[in-house]
């Protein structure tokens, strides 16, 4: 090409390069001043959470800004250093942009919240305004950074290093979780969530997260074991404080039930809106055989026997409910299961001696269920393990971990078997599945009964853990929450169901607003999820394909076209 034609182009390129440098400098400045601003006082009133009136000592949400800005600065510096080939092969534009957005959101929210809570923006000290301006400069300048390419970290390290990575990541996850629980003020907690979200999104953009999940997938067994070890370490972070342990025990029950439901919904594709009834059956079996004074059955077998009886009874109930209901499909099935779920609750309400035989004490339920004694361990006592005195809920927590491990084992064995393939076939095309020789009704009933059994086992533990059960704990709303947990977390994945349970049960503990508007918020969340990420937070690959068929076929089409052009 001739130089003449090139001149305007070259000028444009040089201009582009210059503006890239400018944008980088501006971003760096914005990030640095954001970081510096956290050492200023943002508020005149010390009543705001985190006490932002002190100079030279970042507190509350300022710490989040500090960390995000520091990471951004580090990345920007790496990009102009030789390290960039290793750490940021795809560039840092998108990563820094996400971090900057996080910083801006947190700063803006904090400044606004100071204004609202302390009675007017007059309470924002000049440091707060400086922080806001700095964050705005940071965010805008980051937008001007050149876009990055999707980065691929394909490093293969020696096994022991990768094991270490897994351990460190899971340890950090536990630390982040414990830290989140420890934040008492909702304002700071919200900022913490934003910061965490920004950090995670940044890790994805950088390629770090994808690499970590690839490492995890390479050493699956190690990852799963390490995850359980880390989960088992949780009680040790709480000491003898029972509050969050108690919450986590409820989360554990809920999560076990959700994984069981995920076999029914996620694997077999049967929408069951009355699932909580099976948890209820298990809980009533557990309560009636617990030796509680209010129990109508005097027999108090060892807990191992109770669990087996609970499992068998719920399996039978599952078959009884499933046999008529599984003859209908789709929406009809959802409505019929909903009806049967309510029938359970109403029946239990009426087995009170006046409108029916006395079995369940009716609406009064069964109070005073004694703590478990299992394998010689009294679950009502606190125990000292590794020199640490743990709250007594830790006992239940450990037992649940064992149960969850069992449920996960069942789930994954089912998913990766001939049976799992048959369920998938039924979900895909029931007629073709029948024509292939699959006994669709029996397999659906099996999924239904299996899910019921797992919920029943969880129920027997639940009765002891919450020590008092009433029919109202097993109403339709709870079934809806279970389905919501599965959908939110991801249909067909174990991690998804667990994550969904944690989110659904912990957020209301943290935000009063959530507590008061649970239904509104869950409804809204589900609508938004259906619109933007129908496969849930953690996607099952196949489910993802089901929800994004058009996009995938478009991509395949584009690839085929590109191949044809070549």
């Amino acid at each position, binding site marked *: 090409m001739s130089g003449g034609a090139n001149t305007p182009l070259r000028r444009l390129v040089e201009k582009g390069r210059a503006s890239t440098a400018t944008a980088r400098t501006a971003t760096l400045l914005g990030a640095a001043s954001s970081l510096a601003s956290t050492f200023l006082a943002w508020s005149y009133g010390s009543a705001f959470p985190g006490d932002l009136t002190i100079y030279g000592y970042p507190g509350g949400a300022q710490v989040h800004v500090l960390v995000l800005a520091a990471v951004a600065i580090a990345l920007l510096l790496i990009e102009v250093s030789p390290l960039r080939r290793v750490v940021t092969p795809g560039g840092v534009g998108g990563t820094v942009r996400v971090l900057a957005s996080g910083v801006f959101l947190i700063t803006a929210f904090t400044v606004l919240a100071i204004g609202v809570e302390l009675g007017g923006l007059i309470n924002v000290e000049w440091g707060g305004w400086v922080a806001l301006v700095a964050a705005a400069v940071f965010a805008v300048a980051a937008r001007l950074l050149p876009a990055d390419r999707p980065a691929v970290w394909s490093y293969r390290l020696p096994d022991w290093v990768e094991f270490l990575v897994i351990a460190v990541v899971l340890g950090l996850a536990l630390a982040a979780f414990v830290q989140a629980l420890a934040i008492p003020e909702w304002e700071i907690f919200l900022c913490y969530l934003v910061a965490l979200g920004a950090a995670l999104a940044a890790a994805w953009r950088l390629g770090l997260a994808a690499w970590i999940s690839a490492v995890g997938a390479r050493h699956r067994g190690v990852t799963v074991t390490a995850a359980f070890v880390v989960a088992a370490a949780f009680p040790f972070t709480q000491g003898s404080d029972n509050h969050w342990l108690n919450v986590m025990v409820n989360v554990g029950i809920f999560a076990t039930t959700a994984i069981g439901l995920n076999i029914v919904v996620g694997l077999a594709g049967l929408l069951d809106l009355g699932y909580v009834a099976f948890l209820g059956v298990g809980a009533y079996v557990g309560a009636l055989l617990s030796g509680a004074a209010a129990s109508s059955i005097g027999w108090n077998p060892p807990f191992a026997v109770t669990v087996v009886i609970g499992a068998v009874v719920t399996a039978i109930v599952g078959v009884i409910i499933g046999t008529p209901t599984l003859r209908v499909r789709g929406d009809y099935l959802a409505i019929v299961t909903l009806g049967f779920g309510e029938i359970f609750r109403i029946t239990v309400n009426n087995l009170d001696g006046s409108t029916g035989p006395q079995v369940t004490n009716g609406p009064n339920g069964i109070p005073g269920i004694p703590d478990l004694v299992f394998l010689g361990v009294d679950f009502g006592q606190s125990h000292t393990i590794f020199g640490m005195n743990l709250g007594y809920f830790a006992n239940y927590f450990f037992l649940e971990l064992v149960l969850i491990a069992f449920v996960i084992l069942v789930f994954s064995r089912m998913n990766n078997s001939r049976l799992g393939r048959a369920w998938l076939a039924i979900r895909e095309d029931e007629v073709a599945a029948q*024509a292939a*020789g699959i006994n669709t009704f029996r397999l659906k009933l099996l999924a239904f009964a299996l899910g019921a059994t797992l919920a029943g086992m969880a129920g027997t533990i639940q009765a002891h853990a919450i020590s008092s059960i009433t029919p109202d704990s097993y109403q339709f709303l709870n079934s809806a929450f279970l389905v919501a947990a599965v959908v939110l977390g991801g249909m067909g994945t174990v991690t998804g169901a667990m994550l969904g349970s944690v989110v659904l049960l912990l957020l209301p503990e943290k935000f009063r607003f959530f507590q008061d508007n649970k239904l509104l918020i869950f409804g809204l969340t589900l609508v938004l999820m259906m619109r933007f990420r129908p496969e849930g937070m953690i996607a099952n690959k196949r489910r993802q394909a089901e929800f994004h068929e058009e996009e995938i076929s478009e991509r395949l089409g584009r690839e085929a076209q590109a191949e044809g052009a070549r």
Partner: protein
Amino acid sequence: MTAMLEVDDLRVAYGNILAVKGISFRVEQGQVVTLIGGNGAGKTTTLRTLSGLLHPVGGQIRFKGRRIDGMAAHKIVELGIAHSPEGRHIFPRMTIEENLLLGAYLRRDGAAIEQDVRRAYELFPVLGERRRQAAGTLSGGEQQMLAMGRAMMSRPELLMLDEPSMGLSPIMMQKIMETVAALKESGTTILLVEQNAQAALNLADRGYVLETGRIVLEDHGQALLGNDQVRKAYLGED
């Protein structure tokens, strides 16, 4: 000698409406028998009843001398009848290999299944090339190949093909028909339902012409091809 499949006065209804109004036909071992006829003649209904997806209101179906009318679909597959349904009905989001394996769902002989999968890939090389691909990404003709391959995976004694040429390009249609011919050569007994009467009758040992739920004509395949009535009604000649 009893025929492999004997259908006697079969009647099938959707609600109050009789779609198949008492038909009788036989399929002998090793034969290709075809049912032809226009839309709504009852061909697909007949096949779906034979494979147990529908239940008859009257008449008898005997397979190797045993009554199978009213039996559940999975039991009929177990007895040795495979059905490649109309509209292909492959599992679009499962891989090609998984589709084939599902065809062998009732079999427990792992090594032989693998061998049959390899044979399916020999018969349809395009399937082998894309074995890890989602079946929904295949073209219509390739999906038809998959549907036939899947039906063969149960090692059926009787293979029922419902409109294998439907919606295919002429070249694809020819390919599919060649495959049916090859299956016939290898000794598979086939019950073929087709709208493409010419192609079907060319292959068939015996043909039955259905009209609104009744058999109006039956003869050897070649004889039907030469039949004036058939030529006018189904081969577009006058």
